[in-house]
């Protein structure tokens, strides 16, 4: 596994997002998060999983200051964001809403993407350059002058992601970014994210797609009824079916299959088809005394 998130001296991991004992209750009655503490290293790709209503979106909104914890502290790059306005936090933390229509408002795709850039004070030549390279990265050049509303769901989603990429915040929080996208669009988006991660950016990715988690994430956080049930490397967490079942999450098919074959020697932690195939073949060769 690649090591990421280390400072130039290569010794100390820098923490990008830190929650300390955070709780959040909606309307004073629905307890969405209960005393959650976690630290996300800079340059990591963390998947946030859990049932609908487990507190995933609430946690995400605490990280960018859209919600303020009633209890606890949120630190972004080591700084407590308690007294910082949302606009200032947004320079460091980019947030992709679950529903693209909750953030699209400009009359054309070009203006939608330019809006954030202008807001953040990029000078005009750089703005244009960032705008067009974001349009290109997501194959949106042909749609630059289209109203976002006439585009299909997949393209509207790409417009919102391109807006985020245009100004390139060091921390990206994405709520179900690939939901409703076909596989090809989804893979393209994930590849762009991987490039950002390779450039040292931090990714917090909310999803139900466990196949995606197994293939892309470095670590997983499991939320259940507002509590952080577990946090750790993907392979370790997915190898624990009991834990996942408690959070109503199921591992990808090949992981599940490798767990069914545990009594016959599989370790039960295959993350991909290739992973499963290699471990199984080695096991078979051993049994056959090759």
């Amino acid at each position, binding site marked *: 596994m690649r090591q990421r998130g280390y400072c130039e001296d290569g010794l100390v991991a820098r923490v990008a997002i830190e929650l300390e004992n955070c709780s959040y209750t909606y309307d004073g009655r629905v307890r969405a998060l209960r005393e959650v503490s976690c630290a996300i290293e800079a340059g990591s790709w963390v998947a946030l999983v859990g049932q609908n209503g487990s507190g995933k979106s609430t946690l995400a909104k605490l990280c960018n200051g859209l919600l303020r914890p009633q209890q606890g502290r949120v630190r972004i790059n080591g700084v407590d964001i308690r007294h910082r306005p949302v606009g200032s936090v947004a320079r460091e933390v980019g947030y992709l809403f679950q529903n693209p229509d909750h953030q699209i408002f400009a009359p054309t795709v070009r203006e939608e993407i330019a809006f954030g850039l202008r807001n953040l004070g990029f000078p005009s030549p750089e703005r244009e350059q960032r705008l067009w390279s974001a349009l290109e990265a997501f194959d949106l050049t042909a749609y630059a002058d289209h109203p976002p509303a006439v585009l299909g769901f997949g393209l509207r989603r790409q417009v919102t992601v391109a807006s985020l990429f245009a100004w390139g915040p060091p921390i990206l929080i994405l709520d179900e970014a690939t939901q409703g996208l076909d596989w090809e669009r989804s893979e393209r988006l994930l590849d762009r994210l991987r490039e950002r991660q390779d450039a040292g950016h931090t990714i917090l990715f909310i999803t139900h797609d466990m196949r995606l988690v197994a293939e892309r994430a470095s670590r997983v956080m499991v939320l259940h009824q507002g509590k952080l049930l577990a946090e750790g490397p993907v392979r370790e967490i997915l190898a624990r079916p009991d834990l996942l079942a408690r959070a109503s999450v199921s591992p990808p098919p090949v992981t599940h*299959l490798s767990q069914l074959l545990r009594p016959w020697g599989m370790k039960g932690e295959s993350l991909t088809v290739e992973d499963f195939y290699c471990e199984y073949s080695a096991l078979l060769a051993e049994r056959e005394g090759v």
Partner: protein
Amino acid sequence: MLKGVSLSVAEGECLALLGPTGAGKSTLCLCLNGLIPHLVEGTFRGGVHVAGHSTLESTPGELSQTVGLVFQDAESQFVSMTVEDEVAFGLESLALPPDEIERRLTEALEMTGVAGLRSRSPLELSGGQKQRVALAAVLAMRPRVLVLDEPTTNLDPVGKAALLKAIRRLRKAWGTTVVWVTQDVDWVPQLADRVAVLWNGRIALIGGLPEVFDQGALLRRMGLRVPQVRELAARFDRAGQGGHAWLGMDEAAGVLRGRLGG
């Protein structure tokens, strides 16, 4: 959106409809319940017959008793304050006698496993519960054909499993014909008898699950995946340990266990 599509679905069959974004899947669904051509603007050529009714010659209102449509976003369909009123809404507009309404209401709620939520507000339910209430509202009309347009997209695995269970129960009890649009390809073998792939407004592939998912390379070019268990079978094939075409988990586990001597 659709170009010269010909398709027939047998009574009682479940057809899964796959296809990338913009392939025309939702358009096809709207053709099945008559919203196309009656309410959606566009040019419509050809004919659609559902359980003997021509969609051109029937109104969407008449067709609503034959074809039930459940969307991805159940919430957008809700109009009532309680689950009970939501499910009874369509029945009341048919002016059925009260005891018949009650009978169908109870039956639909039980079939979908939401009887316990009867007096709750549909808006305060979980995603999986909302989708099952939307399904119950459609079932209460006793449609012979059920059209599901990505009903599981917003659901967690528990919500998905509960919805699929309700649909299986329904097929068994009433023999309902199901057309199921989905991106959740790993779940397709649990419910579908056949698969059709829509691409650029045309039917690119149609057939039994093994035949269609055998076309892994073609499906990938169209931006689609095959079930992961089938991908694994293909990986063993490529290594010369061929002859596998598993689709289901149990089938794969059985064969792989056998080879390990278990």
